[in-house]
């Protein structure tokens, strides 16, 4: 049973526009959420995170929104750049637990020039 789901396998966006990547989770014990970016033949790179006590966290062009009642989070990238083209993974953790991350399947983002 998948506890973290990214229902869109791929997303294509024009350069300069907004990219919105979505993630849903089922485990109400998750209290920390992260987004990772992955280029081919590389490991995931940490992008941005949010604690369950917040509903928004912003870092430059990247903003993560958390809707706890809907068990939904999203990553907004604005403006999108061609270098943002990668696979984006949503991950969740129970920090009171071992700290292990539960990942979604990933969404491939393509930003077209």
């Amino acid at each position, binding site marked *: 049973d*998948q506890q*973290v789901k990214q229902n869109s396998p791929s997303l294509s966006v024009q350069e300069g526009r907004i990219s919105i990547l979505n993630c849903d989770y089922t485990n109400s014990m998750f209290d*920390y959420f*992260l987004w*990772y970016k992955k280029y081919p*033949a*590389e*490991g*995931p*790179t*940490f992008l941005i*995170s949010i604690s369950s006590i917040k509903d928004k966290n912003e870092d430059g062009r990247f903003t993560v929104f958390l809707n706890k009642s809907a068990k939904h989070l999203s990553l907004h990238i604005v403006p999108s750049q061609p270098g943002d083209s990668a696979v984006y*993974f949503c*991950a969740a*953790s129970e*920090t009171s*637990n*071992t*700290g*292990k*991350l*539960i*990942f*979604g*399947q*990933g969404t491939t983002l393509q930003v077209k020039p």
Partner: protein
Amino acid sequence: EAGVTQFPSHSVIEKGQTVTLRCDPISGHDNLYWYRRVMGKEIKFLLHFVKESKQDESGMPNNRFLAERTGGTYSTLKVQPAELEDSGVYFCASSQDRVAAFFGQGTRLTVV
């Protein structure tokens, strides 16, 4: 500062053989994690070390997998004997706090 380093980057072995993957975490990071991604699916947790102790090995698939972390520094993940379904990319990650933040580049294991 060096990041998380994994060796080898690729390994192709025959079914039934043994393979050992190595991970050197970021210096000073007590937490070390192993993850695996199979067939382009989600990245799945295998186990977690705190220094040299196994904190959580609930994700280890079966007893053909053995992980060690000598002296709380580098870690090895041995697969013996390897099966076809073990093919995938094995990632190591390390962190100072309990949320894995830094990943290595991965070892792509192909069992034929």
